């Protein structure tokens, strides 16, 4: 699971209000490099919940090797320089959570992540 995907995921267990953002309890995180695509990140920015990106990054930080280049805590207004976009691209596309859990902020329900695949299957009584 890329941090990009995490940014859009919610919990829809019965009884949740927002179910967002899901907290990441990471056990294993890997980096898979892919070539920087400036157009792509720029296109994604408007729909991105930047606060959730920062939150997610903090939650996985101690498992990420090598440490990614810093991204600003707040998204700068106006034109964003290429170095920042490149760092942001790296965070969103190249960091993959492989093992761990996603935790619903409202209900505490844990969704396991195995081999990079979050299990969001609900039990009958959770729908």
């Amino acid at each position, binding site marked *: *699971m*890329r941090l*990009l*995907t995490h940014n*859009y*995921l*919610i*919990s*829809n267990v019965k009884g949740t209000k927002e*179910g*967002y953002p899901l907290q990441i309890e990471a056990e294993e995180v890997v980096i*898979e*490099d*892919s*070539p*920087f*695509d400036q*157009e*792509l990140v720029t*296109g*994604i920015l408007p*729909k991105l*919940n930047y606060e959730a990106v920062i939150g997610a990054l903090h939650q996985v930080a101690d498992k990420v090797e090598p440490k990614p280049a810093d991204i600003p805590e707040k998204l700068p207004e106006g034109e964003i320089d290429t170095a920042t976009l490149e760092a942001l691209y790296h965070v969103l596309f190249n960091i993959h959570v492989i093992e761990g859990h996603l935790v619903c902020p409202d209900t505490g329900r844990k969704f396991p992540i195995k*081999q*990079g*695949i*979050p*299990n*969001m*299957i*609900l039990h*009958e009584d959770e*729908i």
Partner: protein
Amino acid sequence: MSRPELSGHASIFYNEREARKYNSSSRMVNVQREITLRAIELLLLSPDKASYILDIGCGSGLSGQVLEEKGHIWVGCDVSRDMLQVAHERIDDSFDGNNKNVENDEGSDEVHDPPLSTGDLLHHDMGTGLPFRPATFDACISISALQWLCYSNSASQNPKRRLLRFFSQLYAILKKSARAVLQFYPETAEQAVLISECATAVGFGGGVVVDYPNSTKAKKHYLVLSCDRTSSKQVQQSMPSVEEQTHVSVSAASRKGIDKPIRKKKGIKTKEWIIKKKETQRKRGKSVRPDTKYTARRRPTKF
């Protein structure tokens, strides 16, 4: 031949053995590719932009592979862990630079590297909704999966309720003006009607497109949905209507052009980049092909 949907839950039918077929049978691969290409064509995506696409019932990731070849980013969800496992291996191989040669559409011996995967996977049952923020995706495709919602696997599973929950959440997570194209195999005409009715009930515009209507074997149903909230006349007019099914048969000739990538390949993999990447893979102890004068050489394309 009895229908797989009657055999019980999808995650039981699509077990490991069935899932492997999606990797080894070239007939299976080609059919899935062909349908995916047609679905993408019906999406009418903006031509020079990468789209963020949800693939529902992504299975072994064959449809996702077509999406990434076209330069898109995708998220796939499926209820069968065994199918997802095959998709997962395919994605991992693309990162490891293992040349699992992709068979090309003409079936000749020419091969090309699969691009780095842009897909992410999710284990999920579409009948229980779709766990994403509102207005997340530019488009949605679903290949040969939707008909599963017409069957119930337990006393508490009500097909109509599952279809309605599915469509209403699909409507919510698509951006305004996005389209969804869902190819499905209805067992009966009633099923096709039930599916379209549930889709329109939640606010979708659109209808069913039937390709090759006169061939029992090649016949394909595509539910084409638009969620344009302003419901402009033009969009509605270009959409097939639900009441009268549009019979569109597409000749082989007119299909030729649809295989072009709609966008330049994202971030071309340069020779240095590939060599650096292989170096990291070696350090991690993965087996990687040796660097030769052929490394990063462009492969012949299909044209």
